[in-house]
């Protein structure tokens, strides 16, 4: 029974399984990059024929990265990482916290890196000299009395042995973050016409409406262009409303979203309507009104005794790319109608007899927002940081240990310097040589 259990654990802890899973993940991942994903079933029939399309549906190929077998492979990788870590960590922890002053002395004479010296002084003198040499080379040593002599020990980076397990843990943390995201998060979009507010998101894929407990008002959407006419930046001035009250105001652009209550609102698209937002203000009475005007159609505003009538009657390109100039016809029943030009987004003062008006005009858009709620994203980021820290420790820091045993052999002092490194042995050879050269020259001085 316990033997079976052990071989079961050994299998799931094995590097062989890890290599197998990595290989299969790599190979099967290719499928989804070659066969288009998440297309309607008819698309596969058209591309690959009836039988192949059926086979694909059975194997979940059209959405393979969410298929049971791909998730199973990822799960197997996690299980492998966890079991391997549980199995190995206790031994590694022992290595990290080991008291190396109790090391079996007979091992020292068998290490690959070792040097022996015979200084003339007593063992105590030699010990303090070696200690100084080690300190000047950056090795902080501790010492103890052992049978027949004094043992010095110094090490660097014992904790780096944990690096690889930090990397393994980081992968688990990233998976946990991804799972939290897929269970408790969602993605959708909303289209908000300027000057209006919305509180419903339409989920991607399903199109299901999801209601927020707050609403988003789009005050203004601005599209700027390069000289070539290509879009340069989309910008929306958004206001968050809680029960109709403003709680937050922020402009967003692509790459600079709005965060509120666990939701993130990304600028993703826009929709033009070929309509214009016009604000008309009577500067004498401070009366103001906002209109949605269509080109070529008359707009009337009843104000006091006089009716105001205006219309957008022409348009013209300007030197500024993508910015248009509009011609307005304007009448308030006091004398000849006025005509004037106004830039998109501009404001013009219209003097009419003893009344002054201010006329503003801006093209009317709806801003397209992508909305995500992903409570797992911070776990993913923490996992990523852990992974980079773990890889740094695992790859670039080695656990180097130096022992110096100073003993009395036949009335003469003997100094045995030996050392090991758990990785990068070529570099350690050089470090060891530098240290032993220093010890040698200090002892013979």
């Amino acid at each position, binding site marked *: 029974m316990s033997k079976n259990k052990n071989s079961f654990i050994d299998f799931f802890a094995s*590097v062989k399984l890890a290599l197998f899973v*990595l290989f299969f993940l790599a190979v099967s991942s290719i499928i*989804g990059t070659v066969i288009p994903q998440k297309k309607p079933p008819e698309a596969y029939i058209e591309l690959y024929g009836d039988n192949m399309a059926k086979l694909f549906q059975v194997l979940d190929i059209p959405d393979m990265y969410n298929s049971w077998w791909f998730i199973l492979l990822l799960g197997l990788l996690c299980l492998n990482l966890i079991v391997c870590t549980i199995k190995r960590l206790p031994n590694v922890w022992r290595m990290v916290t080991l008291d190396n002053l109790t090391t079996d002395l007979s091992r020292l004479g068998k290490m690959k890196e070792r040097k022996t010296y015979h200084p003339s002084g007593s063992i105590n003198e030699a010990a303090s000299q070696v200690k100084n040499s080690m300190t000047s080379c950056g090795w902080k040593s501790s010492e103890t009395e052992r049978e027949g002599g004094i043992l010095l020990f110094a090490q660097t980076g014992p904790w780096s042995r944990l690096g690889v397990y930090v990397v393994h843990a980081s992968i688990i943390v990233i998976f946990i973050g991804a799972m939290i995201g897929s269970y408790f998060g969602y993605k959708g979009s909303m289209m908000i016409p300027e000057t209006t507010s919305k509180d419903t998101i339409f989920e991607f894929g399903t199109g299901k409406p999801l209601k927020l407990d707050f609403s988003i008002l789009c005050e203004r959407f601005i599209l700027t262009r390069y000289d070539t006419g290509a*879009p340069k930046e989309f910008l929306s001035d958004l206001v968050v409303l809680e029960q109709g009250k403003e709680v937050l105001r922020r402009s967003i*652009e692509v790459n600079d979203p709005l965060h509120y209550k666990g939701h*993130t609102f990304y600028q993703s698209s826009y929709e033009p309507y070929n309509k214009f937002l016009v604000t008309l203000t009577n500067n004498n009475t401070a009366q103001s009104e906002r209109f949605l005007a269509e080109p070529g159609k008359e707009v009337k505003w009843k104000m006091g005794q006089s009716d105001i009538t205006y219309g957008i009657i022409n348009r013209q390109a300007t030197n500024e790319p993508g910015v248009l100039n509009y011609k307005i016809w304007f009448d308030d029943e006091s004398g000849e109608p006025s005509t004037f030009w106004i830039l998109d987004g501009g404001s013009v003062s219209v003097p009419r007899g003893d009344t002054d008006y201010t006329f503003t005009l801006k093209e009317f858009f709806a801003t397209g927002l*992508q*909305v995500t709620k992903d409570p797992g994203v911070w776990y993913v980021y923490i996992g990523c940081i852990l992974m980079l820290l773990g*890889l740094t420790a695992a790859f670039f820091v080695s656990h180097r240990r130096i022992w110096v045993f100073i003993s009395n052999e036949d009335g003469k002092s003997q100094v045995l310097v030996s050392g090991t490194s758990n990785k990068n042995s*070529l570099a350690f050879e050089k470090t060891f040589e530098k240290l032993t050269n220093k010890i040698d020259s200090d002892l013979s001085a």
Partner: protein
Amino acid sequence: MDSSQLLGFTTFAYLLSAVLYIGLFVFRVKKIGTVATVVTLAAFLINTAGIGLRWVESHQMGIGYAPLSNMYESLVFFAWSIAIFYLFLEFKYKNRYLGAFSMPFAAIAMALAEMKNPQITPLIPALQSNWLIAHVVTCFIGYAAFAVACGFGILYLLKNRKKEHEPEGNMLSQLPSLRVLDDIIHKTLVFGFMWLTAGIITGAVWANSAWGTYWSWDPKETWSLITWFIYAAALHARFTRGWGGHRIAWFSIVGFGSVMFTYYGVNFLLSGLHSYG
């Protein structure tokens, strides 16, 4: 003088450098080596100046951005990364014979860049992000390391095969010993793996800040992960099963094939979001 002319010179300079290093490798005339290093250094400086000038030019056009945003610019930066990485190795290992297996990659990258349109075009909104710069820089440092590791992998296999047939006195004897070569390959792979990891992570952060999804199984993303799996497998095989020598050399070649597919093949053969380079 504009940046595309400077980068045109760079192409010739890297080609010359590659030819000189190969000449050094074949004829073993020490003098060629000195010239090769000088040419490579000069080519690297012209390359740097070209990238800098392109940056300035984009600002003069009023659309200032770091020149790391399309296939042309990334190939130029790829060549730059290979050159600096190789120069570092030459300096560190004091061996010029490795150049014949590194600098051709820089020359090829520049030659591929010359086939692209070097015109500076404004960035679409999604590309206007500092994470993009971090993403491109980290990825290409990694790619450069993998390119060099692949070159050394080929070298290792050549030397390993020759050693079996004719033990002494061939041109490969000038090269570092197999043990040192194996060590360089391993370290280069480790270095590349570290930067590839950082490149995938910065890419994910960028995607999340632009689209709200850090991972969407786009072909480019998936292939970068496949590459990551391949190198992860190589490192596990080495650390725990003691794989080294010709097996790791093969891994460095296969891995680089996957890198090149991620970088280049995906854009031509598969469709996806990542269409800018």
